[in-house]
């Protein structure tokens, strides 16, 4: 028997009571992405007693995540995010069931996974996965609690809720246009995903409890700098939804081609030098130091990579590095999108690379 004392502040609310708490304990929620949005979502739904929680994330915790991903501490660095989150959440609430999926969400696994849950929560950081979540949720008829951020602004909505609009009714995928902030290294105010993720957790709890007004058919936009909150009405587009449902039989055969930084192949400088036929590319700006000149290196700043593809020797394995390893990962992603696949990003930073080369 679960000690209900844990939830007495919920039970004290006439809108929740013991019956509402029982609904939470029976609910099954899948959170996709245990990052900036995923951390506060998971923290609040676990604390609230959502009885079954799934967490899917392939990424590992990096030190630069700790500025906003509040479930993790220094001891989590290097661990898979889904697994590190599970450890922390199980300590927060050991009476609920938590399953971690340390893998990438794909067209192949999404449908089976979604069928085991009542509500899907989108805490991802790229458009391709957002469309994949939307489509798989349409096919399995599950509501999606959506959140997304850009610098100081956030968006929240609930899609596919009781036949409401879907993400494609809001943004049909205009791939020929430039989209802002797809993974990469866009800056973000650390507390913003905390606010937006908490709003998502709020929607999850309201859906389970069947209280209040759900943000279905509405997009809330929040600006952390001036507290401006805008709510826009979204109309359902049957045409957009039919396009997805008509192709549901071939859904699993689609490839998830998109690669965020987690998919970039990394290599140590020592391993790279063991390869026979390589081209080393420095993607730092030419003014950056330390200069590395003890070995043949091609300099192509990331900012001008796409204009200098002729400098890349496609017959060789391409090994990229930069100051910290971040831009070289981005460069690998860009090259992959251009179908240049034989690329690796060096794990070490420029000082470590220089030192290694000097000690050979």
């Amino acid at each position, binding site marked *: 028997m679960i000690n209900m004392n844990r939830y007495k502040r919920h039970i004290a609310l006439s809108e929740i009571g013991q019956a509402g708490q029982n609904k939470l304990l029976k609910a099954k929620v899948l959170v996709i992405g245990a990052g900036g949005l995923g951390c506060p979502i998971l923290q609040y739904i676990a604390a609230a007693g959502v009885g079954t929680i799934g967490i899917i994330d392939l990424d590992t915790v990096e030190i630069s995540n700790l500025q906003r991903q509040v479930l993790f501490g220094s001891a989590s660095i290097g661990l898979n995010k889904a697994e590190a989150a599970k450890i922390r959440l199980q300590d927060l609430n050991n009476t609920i069931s938590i399953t971690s999926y340390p893998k990438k969400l794909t067209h192949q696994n999404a449908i089976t996974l979604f069928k085991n849950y009542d509500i899907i929560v989108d805490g991802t*950081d790229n458009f391709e996965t957002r469309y994949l979540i939307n489509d798989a949720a349409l096919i399995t008829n599950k509501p999606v609690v959506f959140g997304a951020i850009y610098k100081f602004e956030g968006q929240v909505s609930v899609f596919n809720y009781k036949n409401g609009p879907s993400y494609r009714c809001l943004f049909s995928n205009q791939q020929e246009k430039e989209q802002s902030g797809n993974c990469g290294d866009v800056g973000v105010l650390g507390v913003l995903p905390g606010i937006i993720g908490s709003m998502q957790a709020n929607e999850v709890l309201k859906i389970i409890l069947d209280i209040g007004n759900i943000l279905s058919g509405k997009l809330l936009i929040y600006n952390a700098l001036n507290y401006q909150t805008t709510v826009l009405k979204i109309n359902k587009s049957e045409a957009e939804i039919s396009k997805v449902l008509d192709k549901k039989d071939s859904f699993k055969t689609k490839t998830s081609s998109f690669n965020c930084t987690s998919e970039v192949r990394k290599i140590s400088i020592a391993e790279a030098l063991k390869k026979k036929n390589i081209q080393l590319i420095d993607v730092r700006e030419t003014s950056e130091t330390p200069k590395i000149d003890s070995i043949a290196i091609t300099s192509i700043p990331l900012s001008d990579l796409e204009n200098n593809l002729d400098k890349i020797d496609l017959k060789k394995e391409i090994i990229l590095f930069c100051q910290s390893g971040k831009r070289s990962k981005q460069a690998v992603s860009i090259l992959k999108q251009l179908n240049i696949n034989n690329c690796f990003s060096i794990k070490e930073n420029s000082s470590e690379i220089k030192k290694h080369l000097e000690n050979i």
Partner: protein
Amino acid sequence: MTINVKYFGLIAEITTCEKERILFTKKNVSEFLELLYLKYPSLKNKDFQVAQNQELVSQDALISGHELALLPPFAGG
């Protein structure tokens, strides 16, 4: 007539303001956007949706309201 136009996210970075009043004589949203592209040419390549009076509308919607908003999708998480 004039209309209030609100910008969000990356769109507001291009326009360098979050809202402004714009004088226009156009009838529908796509004609209005053509006018806006003259002022901000780089908007043309950006993905965004338009809302009129807090409701998302298609590009052929007639301009009837007092406020338009240009809303880009956000990816971050």
